[in-house]
């Protein structure tokens, strides 16, 4: 029988959302339409319309060593063109953000190629070739993985994921990169490292509390799905913990 990945344990809604995000066969719901140019502005790595700076000559122009692995692996568009490695970083509020750092890393590893994700407690960074990055960023921003209010695109000064929300429901950001306007639309006024943009980039209205609670991948005992309620998840984590501990002392078991 062919191997079929399960993506994760759990019977709760949160576990199902996690599996949905990780499974590349499931299409993520499209929530907004941020243009390519706007994404380039938010990322702040190059001016919109400028050529991609390169780190090395295109693969077609350079002599490749005779390597069996290079024959198996098809290079991504960015690698083929010799683009620089650039990044996008997210901070997700603990108040029912649609994704969270570990989840993002799993999701990206299942869905994207040629990436180097970095997972931290309050932020998650993904590095890859610039051309690929813009393609992946578009997917990360335009789909249900992002909520304009509870997810921040923050290259530096990410602090805020574990803090109380502001009165208008936005996650705290010391640099106030995104602003909730009077019309209810969130606009980025700075790029991800905090440099002011020439024009504000709208990324849509914040999603309502009901939608967030139904689509979150975060267990939360206050107002959400408590972790303890998902017996299957606990059993799985305890099993891994037990096996790890036993292996440390008694490798034969």
């Amino acid at each position, binding site marked *: 029988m062919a191997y079929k990945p399960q993506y994760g344990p759990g019977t709760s809604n949160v576990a199902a959302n996690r599996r949905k995000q990780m499974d590349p066969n499931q299409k993520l719901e499209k929530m907004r339409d941020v243009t390519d140019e706007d994404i380039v502005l938010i990322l702040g790595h190059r001016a919109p319309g400028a050529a991609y700076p390169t780190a090395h000559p295109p693969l077609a122009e350079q002599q490749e060593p005779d390597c069996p692995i290079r024959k198996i692996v098809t290079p991504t568009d960015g690698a083929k063109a010799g683009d620089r490695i650039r990044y996008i970083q997210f901070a997700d509020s603990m108040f029912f953000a649609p994704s969270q750092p570990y989840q993002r890393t799993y999701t990206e590893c299942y869905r994207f190629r040629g990436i180097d994700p970095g997972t931290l407690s309050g932020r998650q960074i993904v590095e890859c070739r610039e051309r690929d990055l813009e393609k992946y960023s578009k997917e990360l921003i335009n789909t249900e993985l992002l909520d304009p209010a509870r997810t921040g695109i923050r*290259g*530096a*000064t990410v*602090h*805020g994921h574990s*803090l*109380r*929300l*502001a*009165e*208008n429901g936005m996650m*705290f950001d*010391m*640099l*106030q990169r995104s*602003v909730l306007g009077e019309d209810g639309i969130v606009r980025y006024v700075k790029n991800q*490292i*905090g*440099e*002011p943009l020439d024009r504000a980039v709208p990324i849509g209205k914040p999603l309502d509390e009901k939608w967030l609670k139904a689509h979150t991948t975060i267990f939360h005992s206050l107002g959400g799905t408590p972790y303890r309620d998902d017996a299957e998840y606990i059993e799985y984590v305890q099993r891994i913990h037990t096996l790890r501990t036993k292996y440390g002392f008694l490798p034969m078991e």
Partner: protein
Amino acid sequence: MTDAIYPQVRIVSARFLRPDTVERLLNRIIQVGGIRRMSLNGQNLPATVPYGPARGKPNPHPDRKAIRVGDQEVQLRVQVGTIILELEDESYIPAIGEAVDEVFADKDFSCIVQKGRYMKTQPTLSDYAKYGPDADSEILGLVDPRRKDGPVIIQGTK
């Protein structure tokens, strides 16, 4: 340093407050009277970006602005999340609770008043090492005593 005989309360809201809400809340609280000292706590909103690739660039933030409390102007430097008060005596606590409830009646989040000990009672060794023997003990533990601008004194509440 605070004297142990004075009771202290802490006002904690479920969300960070906008400057106009802080203004309304503080003006309502000082009407109650009996406040010896007050400190606004929250996340720092620096005037320039302190670190990262954009370091040193101006950091305009709509919540970093001056509010008017009583007859004084108070420059906010933080996004206010907690307000610590030191009171003359315990009899003022219920009235402060009522004042807070009144201000937050039309909001969709809650705010609580807790009684406890929230200000430092004696300088620590680190305080001595950082600020020396002559640091202003009135504000030690509340704000950086080396700041040039002193506390705002709101008069006429008695």
